[in-house]
């Protein structure tokens, strides 16, 4: 199947106000989404939910134009206030090398049993974690480049790195800002290469320590192959677990990637991230995915990434994951096939694949609107955005995400967090979400200012006010059902804001 030429797709995006165009449209959908519902839908999917005024603004400008704008984040300026706050986060803006240098120095001091070093390390770890969360959440809450932040969430989980593993504590912000965000809407091959070579990934999935077996068994430091990254590279990042590769292919790919490493001291001292170490590289020839691979040093791995990035199986696997994230837990196969075709025709251009997705009748449909159950991350962010409350202290947000089983940067396994209803809907989760909604609506979350526990509270921050239910209802126009609106209008006035944010409608996007 050949993809539609790009202009047609653009036209389709612009005309999405009249969904279900002729051509590849599925059987006639039920009542189409009203313009306000369409605006709410795209704000729930390409953004972390509407802020006050967003639904009206997007309705007025047209969802097609807004989608086009979101697909070009480089043309959208960050507001000065947000940029200034991000610039003020010292542990986020510094280089990976500087971050690692501090981490290693404190680790040495702790090993030397330097008095107070443990305390300093605890404070440093807390500050690094707090600022990383602050940078991520402030962007997600306030950046007008919402789709970029949504794609950062998607790709971070796709190429997950667990911040709790050793030195990755010091490296995840660099990983997100240098390997993920710049490529979030770019070329998949570039994204794949950037993650493959970032020290955070090299360390997390152990490729940094993988090497050809040492021919000298008495060598002091014994070498050897580590399959961890090679396996997840095919299973999770590209082909998918049913991608048709064998254990032999995993071993051979691991051999091709030997020597892809980094040196902690060089990174800390001189900022060198990736290095290819020919001494670690397995010089033999390999057979991978049925192809003979002649010895060629680092280029063996580069070619493997080329093959994987453009492989039809990768195109289908990642297209399906994108469709699952943006459309429904079990996305329509026809849509996945069209996205796959765009992937192949565009050489893995993420923006082009997303254009196909957003322009599709399957995306702009009544079946899709509200079909996704929000992850804890999406629930917390969308509640804050709808509330319009300014967030100085992200602590209550990160705590809630942790309680709901989704600590930020805290997914231990390389498959990242899932985004399906099956993964997140359970009785306890609903109760906790309702508790969060009630606290936020009642103005009882300490969002105003961050007070380090070590400092005495000098002056009490102004207490946040309870939310105005009418304003909240206006902000959420287009995603509240008549049933919910009816029940809320019957509820006690002081609980109505809580009821809106804790309603069944607000659990879904």
């Amino acid at each position: 199947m050949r993809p539609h030429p790009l202009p047609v797709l653009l036209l389709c995006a612009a005309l999405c106000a009249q969904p279900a165009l002729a051509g590849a449209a599925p059987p006639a959908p039920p009542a189409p989404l009203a313009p306000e519902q369409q605006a709410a839908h795209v704000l729930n999917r390409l953004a972390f939910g509407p802020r006050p005024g967003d639904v009206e603004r997007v309705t007025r400008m047209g969802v097609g134009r807004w989608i086009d704008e979101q697909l070009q984040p480089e043309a959208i300026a960050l507001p000065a206030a947000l940029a200034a706050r991000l610039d003020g986060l010292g542990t986020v803006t510094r280089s990976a090398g500087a971050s690692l240098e501090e981490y290693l120095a404190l680790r040495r001091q702790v090993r030397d049993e330097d008095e107070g070093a443990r305390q300093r390390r605890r404070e440093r770890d807390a500050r690094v974690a707090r600022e990383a969360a602050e940078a991520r959440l402030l962007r997600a809450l306030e950046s007008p480049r919402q789709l970029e932040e949504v794609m950062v969430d998607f790709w971070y989980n796709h190429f997950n790195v667990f911040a709790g593993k050793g030195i990755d504590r010091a490296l995840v912000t660099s990983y997100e800002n240098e390997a993920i965000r710049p490529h979030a809407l770019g070329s998949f091959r570039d994204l794949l290469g950037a993650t493959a070579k970032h020290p955070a990934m090299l360390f997390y999935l152990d490729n940094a320590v993988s090497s050809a077996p040492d021919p000298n068994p008495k060598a002091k430091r014994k070498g050897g192959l580590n399959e961890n990254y090679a396996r997840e590279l095919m299973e999770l990042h590209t082909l998918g677990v049913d991608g048709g590769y064998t254990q032999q292919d995993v071993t051979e790919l691991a051999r091709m990637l030997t020597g892809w490493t980094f040196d902690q001291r060089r990174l800390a001292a001189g900022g060198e991230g990736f290095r290819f170490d020919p001494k670690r590289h397995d010089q033999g020839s390999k057979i991978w995915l049925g192809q003979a691979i002649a010895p060629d040093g680092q280029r063996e791995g580069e070619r493997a990434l080329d093959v994987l990035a453009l492989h039809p199986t990768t195109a289908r696997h990642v297209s399906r994951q994108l469709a699952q994230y943006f459309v429904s837990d079990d996305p329509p196969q026809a849509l996945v096939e069209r996205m796959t075709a765009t992937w192949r025709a565009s050489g893995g251009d993420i923006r082009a694949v997303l254009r196909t997705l957003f322009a599709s009748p399957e995306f702009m449909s009544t079946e899709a609107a509200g079909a996704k159950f929000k992850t804890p991350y999406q629930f917390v962010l969308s509640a804050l955005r709808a509330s319009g409350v300014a967030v100085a202290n992200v602590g209550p947000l990160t705590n809630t995400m942790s309680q709901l089983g989704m600590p930020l940067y805290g997914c231990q396994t390389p498959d990242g967090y899932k985004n399906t209803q099956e993964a997140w809907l359970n009785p306890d989760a609903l109760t906790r979400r309702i508790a969060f909604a009630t606290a936020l609506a009642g103005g009882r979350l300490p969002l105003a200012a961050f007070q380090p526990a070590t400092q005495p509270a000098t002056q009490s921050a102004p207490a946040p006010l309870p939310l105005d239910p009418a304003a909240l209802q206006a902000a959420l126009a287009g995603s509240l059902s008549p049933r919910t609106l009816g029940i809320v209008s019957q509820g006690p006035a002081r609980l109505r804001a809580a009821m809106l944010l804790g309603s069944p409608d607000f659990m879904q996007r």
Partner: protein
Amino acid sequence: MQRRDFLNALALGAGIVLPLGPHAWAATASASATRRKLVVVMLRGAVDGLNVVAPVGDENYLRLRPTIGLAAPGMEGGALDLDGYFGLHPALASLQPLWQHKKLAFVHASGSPDATRSHFDAQDYMESATPGRKNTPDGWMNRLVAALPGSATPSRLLGIGPVMPRILAGTAAAVNLPNVASAAKADVLDRPEVAAAFDALYGGHPRFGRAYADGRSAHREVLDTAIEKDHDSAPMMAADRGAPLPNGFPDDAARLATLMRNDPRIQLAFVALGGWDTHAAQGAGSGQLANRLAPLGQGLALLAERLGPLFDDTLVVVMSEFGRTARENGNGGTDHGHGNVMWLLGGNVNGGKVYGEWEGVGDAALNEGRDLPVNTDFRSVLAQVSERHLLLGDKQLAQVFPAMPQRTAAFQVVKG
């Protein structure tokens, strides 16, 4: 067979007589079946079974694992002798008394027959109990609770962890509690006005109504239990002087024991623990793996201790999605393998023995030349537990473990 059918009939018949209250209910004859408990502990990430129950008596063992292999029993950091051939990891010393009292057994070279070395697929298969079949909608513990005699209450099938696990998913009600001991605290929905507001929003809601209702009734059950427990477990708390335990699992295990003692309706429980994917620097007698095994062993021992007499009616199964390579890799770790070891604890276990067809760890015995074979299908062990311990009938057994291979375990690790 006849006896089991009789017991089933008895249990089913008694189940029809609706209980007047939880305690009256627990005292009826139906208790013979429902009194029996099953706790499943899943080690996500593939624990290195060859260093949990290590073949220290095999001449190949230390050749395959020169830096991470456990030293022989009696040496510094050495394994704890089990039967003269196998040795237990020294970090699991807290389980030694259970072994000596024959309440702990292992099934080695066991696992899923599916050859996948993907953590995620293999865990999925172990939770659905349909290896190789991805579209199974429910987990086997959910099918099991549906097949067991007795009336359904949400807390009968209990999980402890941040999210509802696959193994509990399905049509029967199940409850998931968070890890921290906050589940038994009052929450915002205990305020009548708030409860009324959200009951109205969620009552009869087609998508979320059931999850909401299950959450409320489970919360009430747990709260009731927590209120009762205060005087009941006071001596126990005094005995350890309220000292916090070193790591998460012992806390959860202690809480689980308290819940099970106080709420006879809890029959099946599930806990998952992560952090076993030791590709690098896993250590031998001490180190990374030892640091994870120690709180696991302590938690299991604590669970046994705090269940008290109920431990005799409880069976604990510890399992992991697959084993790890027999050879250590270049980084003092191990890669994804195949066969592993299952652990069984409880009064109904024929303990003090390592079961399973064992061929050693010589090169010729290894699966694909790299890891333990699966000589015992994990489902045949679970089926034996369901049949002999939980007294499940043949028909129900086929519902819980559909498409089971004919071959049953050649040993009886569970008492009849």
